């Protein structure tokens, strides 16, 4: 059996505003190294909420989260930031690139933060990732000069820069047309095939989900 990359135990999350309301109810989830997992479910069933918890950005929950077999629940803001930086790549629905930096600088930023490689090495690696994603010719453009699909590919390159343990995506194709959507899926698939990259992608696209290794279906805050 492959190594566990991500595990949740009895993960429970409630909102209290406007009324007390349990969004996630005792979620137990395990994701192995090299798995391509999709999460599907009706709008409002708590998919995004789950992903924010797993990405360590939201720390207000009950239960436990393990990343790389290490308990992350209760860690300090600084150590969680380091985990996000080194182990998690995140792709949002709305690309979210820094408008002050050009494409390659955007990709480099998490690498510069981690500081494992020199600037030149990081730049080289960033260009390599952009090349794989067919974006190397746009490397010096500013984000506002790119199309939606192109921005999403840059975001994927950025997610890859620190060789993360797992890449998470919250409807990364939700805002793209069919063609770009397929392209992004192809990229994900390639990552899984060639690098044994672990992926956890929330999607509402049944086609997309059907082509992943495992589909996790959520309903009313539970996995069914």
């Amino acid at each position, binding site marked *: 059996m492959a190594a566990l990359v991500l595990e949740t135990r009895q993960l429970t999350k409630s909102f209290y505003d406007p009324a007390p309301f349990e969004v996630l109810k005792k979620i137990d989830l395990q994701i192995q190294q090299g798995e391509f997992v999709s999460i599907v479910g009706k709008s409002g069933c708590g998919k995004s909420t789950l992903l924010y918890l797993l990405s360590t950005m939201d720390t207000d929950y009950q239960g436990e989260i393990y990343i790389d077999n290490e308990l992350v629940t209760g860690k300090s803001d600084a150590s969680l930031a*380091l985990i996000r930086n080194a182990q998690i790549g995140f792709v*949002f629905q709305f690309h*979210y690139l820094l*408008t002050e930096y050009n494409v390659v600088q955007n990709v480099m930023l998490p690498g510069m933060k981690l500081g494992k490689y020199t600037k030149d090495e990081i730049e080289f690696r960033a260009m390599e990732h952009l090349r794989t994603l067919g974006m190397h010719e746009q490397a010096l453009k500013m984000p506002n000069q790119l199309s939606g699909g192109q921005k999403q590919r840059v975001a994927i390159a950025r997610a890859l820069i620190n060789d993360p343990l797992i890449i998470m995506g919250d409807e990364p194709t939700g805002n793209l047309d069919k063609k770009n959507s397929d392209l992004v899926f192809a990229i994900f698939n390639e990552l899984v095939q060639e690098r044994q990259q672990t992926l956890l992608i929330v999607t509402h696209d049944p086609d997309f989900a059907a082509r992943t290794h495992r589909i996790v279906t959520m309903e009313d805050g539970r996995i069914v």
Partner: protein
Amino acid sequence: MNVKLLFNIALHLLRARFKQSLVAAVGVTFGIAMFISLVSFMNGLNDLLDGLMLNRTPHVRLYNEIQPSKHQPVDFDPQYRNQTVIINSVKPKDRGKSIYNGKAIIHDLKQDKRVVDVAPKITAPVFFNSGTIEISGVVYGVDVAAEEKLFRLSDYVIAGKVADLNQSNSIIIGKGLADKMLMKIGDVVKVTTAKGNLSTFKIVGILQIGIAELDNTMSYTSLSSAQKLLGAPTNYITDIQVKLFDIQQAPALTKEFSKKYEVDGMDYQTTNSQFETGSTIRSIISYAVGIVLLIVAGFGIYNILNMMIFEKMDSIAILKATGFSGRDVQWIFIILSMIIGFTGGICGLLFGYIFTSIIDVIPFNTPALPTITTYPISFRPLFYGIGITFALTTTFIAGWFPARKAGKVDPVEIIRGK
């Protein structure tokens, strides 16, 4: 913490909001430039007035005060030893104003390592006779060389030469006095002492201190001429003026000297106490104005940073999502604020220097201050150090609060909000 990276991010954010940042920096520049100009000018003024007073006032003055004897004869009678005695109509004792053994005291003081130099002086209240009118005034008998060395008498002599005082019965009179008596150099003035002695003096110079009260009454002559005028022996002096290396020691040394030589003493600080207050107030005003301007600039920075953080919520969220901690984000904005403060501050110092350099050469001629030709400016590195420290502290504080807010931004809220 990767300071270089945080610095880089701060710079990029700054460039994206260049105009507002520039306005904020100009605010700091203005505050610091005003501060430097004010402080330099006010201190220049203080130094000028200090010099004026310092040049004219000894650090320690030893003299004999007219006062009643401390021990009245009745105190020596054993019969009243343990009783309370009340004496009416006590009169001051005439010890004379002469300092007993003055020459020996001067010689002794000159040996003291804390003393720069000593100058003897005779103060003689007189009447200047001009026709039928008598004008009351003062003749100072001075050791010309010592007086020149300690008090730069020649700075205030607007006509004639100080050295000419060494001729017997020559006098330098105040400008006000000369104007009143319609006298000029070469004229002869009649002087009567309080005891009725009459002498004639030849005017060899006109003096202007810049304080009307003094210029209307005072005059200088040599020690020997003054002694002759008073019919006093050649060891007669009424004041011993001492200049010290460290003016701060004046009050302590005055006590020490007056006890040792059994004379009265007056220190510089007591003589010029009201003047000190003026200096302090001028300093306080310049610092207060500088600080107020900087607080205004600080609010400017605070506003701009708040606005920038509000606009850059997405960027903050993405930084946090990709591994920057709240503390990193907080530092980014503090650095941003400090960049504004530092650039603004340095420009402020530069402009302050330019302003003061311009003021420094503007002619400022007043008959009251013959040694001054331009507006006084004090160039001191200390002011520039204080200025830049002010700028950095203000911008740090102004940046700290918005930066803390940025550090606490919840990325989930922003990302979800889209």
